[in-house]
């Protein structure tokens, strides 16, 4: 059994028009699972603590499909280079040196875009995508968490 992309699009529309958040489909050894973006948030957060300040609850129930109008992070052309570990983020190889990259710099997947210091150990952060640096999010010398987005890269198509 297989599905064409057109059929998948049709099923996706069915989900969007329904009042459900998730759809699992199994046909022989083919498995398809679809989830509205934002559905995970709604189902785990809502019953727990209603005072959770983020995520306005309005769109959770029956609002317009959240898929298309996703925030910047969801833009498939934008890649976020995230902190591989917690530590102090530096944009330059040493104090006073030029930063590894600036907004507008062309980068390859393996280009070093920063370093993270953990107890005097320097760990390099690589771009992880080919493209152009479009935004630098983390401040030089700041403590960054594991997984924190440090900069965004617009992929070359």
């Amino acid at each position: 059994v297989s599905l064409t992309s057109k059929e998948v699009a049709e099923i996706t529309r069915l989900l969007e028009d329904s009042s459900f958040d998730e759809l699992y489909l199994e046909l022989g050894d083919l498995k398809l699972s679809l989830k509205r973006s934002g559905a995970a948030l709604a189902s785990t957060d809502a019953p727990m603590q209603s005072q959770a300040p983020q995520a306005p609850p309005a769109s959770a129930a029956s609002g317009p499909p959240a898929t298309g109008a996703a925030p910047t992070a969801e833009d498939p052309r934008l890649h976020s280079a995230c902190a591989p570990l917690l530590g102090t983020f530096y944009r330059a190889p040493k104090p006073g040196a030029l930063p590894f990259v600036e907004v507008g710099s062309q980068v390859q997947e393996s280009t070093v875009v920063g370093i993270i210091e953990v107890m005097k150990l320097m760990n390099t952060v690589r771009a992880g995508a080919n493209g152009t640096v479009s935004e630098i999010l983390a401040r030089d010398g700041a403590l960054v968490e594991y997984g924190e987005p440090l900069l965004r890269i617009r992929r070359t198509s």
Partner: protein
Amino acid sequence: VQIRRVLIANRGEIAVRIIRTCRRLGIETVLAASEADRDALPAKLADRTLCIGPARAADSYLKVEAIVQAALGVAADAIHPGYGFLSERSALAKLCEEQGIIFIGPTAAQLEAVGDKLRARSEAEAADVPVVPGGAVDSVEAAMRIARNIGAPLLVKAVGGGGGRGMKAVERVQELPAAMELAASEAGAAFGDSRLYLERFIDHGRHVEVQVLGDGAGEVIHLGERDCSVQRRYQKLLEEAPAPALSDQLRQRLHHAAVRFAKRLNYRGAGTVEFLLDRQREAFYFLEMNARIQVEHPVTEAITGVDLVAEQIAIAEGAGLRLAQSEIRPRGCAMECRVNAEDPARDFHPSPGLVSEARWPAGPGIRVDTYIASGSQVPPFYDSLMAKIIVSAPDRGSTLAQMRQAIAATRVGGIATNLAFHAAILADAEFQAGGVDTGFVGRLLSGGAARASGGNHG
């Protein structure tokens, strides 16, 4: 020094517990959480949460450098390690000492002294605290000599071991050489240390431990004992204080032995000295010292009225002991049931997942330490402890009755728990009589299984 900001390097119910005391004391809390715990209750309660790494403990909660870096990054004065994870790793205490961060616990040297079982054994002997007959063995000949002296059954243990690994029971002295060979290779592979020691195997032992507080300068007080004999495969399930069916004379000897041991180390902070009680001989032996706050500390808090986490913090600040021994007057009785996400029907298999409903008991004399509410997740990466239900009352009978009601009033939906098993323990005549040994849970399980399958012996 006054601690104003604490980094909590732990998760689950103990993180919630530490935050609660810090709040009361006006101390800011920063939680170091793994990716799996970012949205859990401790993260909601802490003033700030830092993600220190992915779900796997080895990449987050066990990373000494990441945790110290996090503390430095947020300018925390101190780190509270909770229990488990890095709480007894001297590496964290040492790095804190080097970086000028207060480690809320003993010194790195004290952690090393109690972490090495042979070293702890010899410290106990030096403090005139009885140890299980036995000793270090470096050859089969020496082992046979000791074995003939103390007699079978025996236990061969690994110096670097723990949790039952590298441990072999020997029924007859002739079996000793083969058991030693096996234990040494197992220990060498598991701990990189194949040193062994030998102990008499005590069959009908009770596990009784004494809570102590030390100021780090030789002053030590005790806060009475806890009985933790209700355990399955070395995992405690239910604890109570005071230990039932114990003569006052034996009780006092236990307390004094624990204080002597901690004094010998100039112990700093809260700690527990564990003993094995030989019911037949009315004797007790030093097992080990736990150099941290323990899971079961609330039963001691319930009968003494002392907030042990607050005392840990005061000692770490250098305030010393704020209570004299004469001011510790245990009153009444307390019991704790550990509610685990595990399925007794499937050999206590872990059952993590979404908790669709959680209703905890409440009322006078009831305390629940938990990180779980309706809609919470029990992540599959860590231990299965969800909550601790602690009940206290004037005497053991009413404590037991109240605990049975508390367990019956608890509802957990969506995942399997051991609540029904707790109900079975509390309903058992031997447990109700008090003073069971560590074989109790095994007997209860095989008895129950035999009954369920129409077995031929009860």
